[in-house]
């Protein structure tokens, strides 16, 4: 009887510990959300969205140039990364029987595990060293970070389409490639868009590869072969600066970034709910 009691006590204790672990992990999330909102409250105004980075000592200023720069860099990265990821995902899902696809899948996982700073160094060695700090180098690095994510989510989205849909199309005499491009892609549209959005959210928040390929830029965008301002990098540079004004802008940039990233995650969750 005594030993039984001991077991029950242990059981209860572990139950408490397990829920405590869950609680502990969620504390940082809520703390980050709370602090970002609280500390950026004072800086959010119309000026914040329409004015560029202030010079040191200047009052006010905003992050309009960083919004512009981020849009251009992330847009260019998506132009490179999304088609490659999409086609690779189609290949992995529709031709999964081939030997090549096992190798491709494995190396996509490997690429996904490579730290973003290493990918940044790669783009630095390949592009920045020859043409200088530029949007092109940063977009190249971000595209590489994006490719495995888009590939993975596309593959998984296409695999969720029932095989009977493909069979029905082929039975109607539609060639396989047309089936893939219209019927299969069409029915997995939502999930694929979700994957692309998630990858965009991920690269919008990347700062390490942007730092080493583009550096910090305080002005407006002035060409693809020159640097541009970046939201995530703003958080780093402003946040570690000694100027109060800049620190406030760092929290403001963090709020915008967090809204984009979490907004896309929640949207993705809603879009994919209850598929098949």
């Amino acid at each position, binding site marked *: 009887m005594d030993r039984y009691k001991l077991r029950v006590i242990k059981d209860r204790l572990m139950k408490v510990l397990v829920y405590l672990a869950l609680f502990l992990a969620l504390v*940082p*999330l809520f703390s980050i959300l709370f602090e970002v909102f609280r500390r950026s409250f004072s800086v959010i105004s119309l000026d914040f969205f329409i004015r560029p980075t202030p010079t040191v000592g200047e009052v006010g200023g905003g992050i309009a140039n960083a919004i512009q720069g981020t849009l251009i860099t992330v847009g260019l990265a998506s132009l490179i990364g999304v088609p490659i990821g999409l086609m690779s995902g189609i290949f992995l899902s529709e*031709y999964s029987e081939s030997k090549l696809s096992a190798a491709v899948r494995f190396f996509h996982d490997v690429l996904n595990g490579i730290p973003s700073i*290493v990918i940044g160094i790669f783009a630095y060695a390949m592009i920045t060293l020859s043409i200088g700090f530029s949007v092109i180098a940063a977009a190249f690095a971000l595209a590489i970070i994006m490719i495995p994510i888009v590939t993975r989510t596309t593959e998984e989205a296409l695999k969720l389409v029932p095989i009977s849909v493909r069979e029905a199309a082929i039975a109607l005499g539609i060639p396989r490639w047309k089936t893939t491009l219209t019927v299969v892609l069409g029915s997995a549209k939502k999930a694929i868009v979700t994957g692309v959005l998630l990858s965009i959210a991920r690269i919008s928040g990347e700062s*390490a590869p942007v730092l080493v390929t583009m550096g910090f830029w305080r002005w407006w965008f002035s060409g693809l072969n020159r640097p541009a301002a970046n939201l995530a990098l703003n*958080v780093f540079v402003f*946040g570690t600066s000694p100027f109060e004004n800049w620190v406030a802008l760092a929290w403001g940039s963090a709020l915008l970034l967090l809204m984009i990233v979490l907004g896309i995650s929640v949207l993705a969750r809603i879009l994919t709910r209850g598929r098949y």
Partner: protein
Amino acid sequence: MQNPPRAFSFFHNLKAKIVALPRMRLKGDDVFKLVCALFASSIFMILGLMVYELVRGSWLSIRTFGLNFIVGTKWDPAISRVFGALPLILGTLVTSAIALVIGVPISLGIALALSEYMPKKFGFGVSFLVELLAAVPSVIYGLWGIFVLIPFLRNHVYPHLQSAFGFLPIFSGPIYGGGVLTGGIVLAIMIIPTVSAVMRDLFSSVPNSQREAMIALGATKWETSKTVVSYARSGVVGAIILGLGRAVGETMAITMVIGNKFQVWPSSLFDAWYTMSAIIANELLEATYDLYVSALIHVGLVLLFISLVINILARLIVWRTLRLTRGIARE
């Protein structure tokens, strides 16, 4: 079919010949498959190019220092221009190890809570919250670390730790706030979503017959959970190694909280240190001569090698376990 214009007749004839050849017909399907395969194969080009560019970029450093780069303990870009990365490698590995010590038990608890303890309906929402933690950009963790976590730890946690365990050398010395332990804690927060998500999937794939057998023997919930964990144990090891891979490559957050001080070994857990990723982020833009740049790319190459080894190992282990448990579940 209408007659083609004159100018294209040569190609038209050629095409007609090709089409006429049995089995040699270029069908839309083959073209499409080929195009897809080409895009998919770009991954090999990317990885190959990455290794090539990193080796090329660090060649000057490799030639100058050789193996001394990995065992050297001096990093002096200003005067003697000698570069040794051992302290950086140690910094990366030790902070990652601290992250695992803190993060793995918590991840294990989360995974068990989500897969064994919580009702499924409720679990979905909570695991989404944990996943959101993974979506928060690294640099925001860093900002939060500097302005929220560091003051909190410096004022409310570290003094108590020191008064309780101060007799141990690792808890002695001055408290700055930022440092090795703070870095480990931030890394732990960042790997928890990854590790716990993989563990949750592993536990969910354990066949129910295992749980039923334990319950039939009169086991408590905790004893049943222990069986589930031990059933998936090699996968759990894989998940931990996966977390290690994440921690090793983390850059911005750790750069912002670790203190960035180049030394072979810190005097205590509260002392500042440096990591491989942090030195690249901090010094690459300031590197003024070729050997300096080359040494930093060399650090990147070492980091690539370490993360490749860790990730490939982890993938192989997780894959094997998932296949194993799913195979049994199907039988």
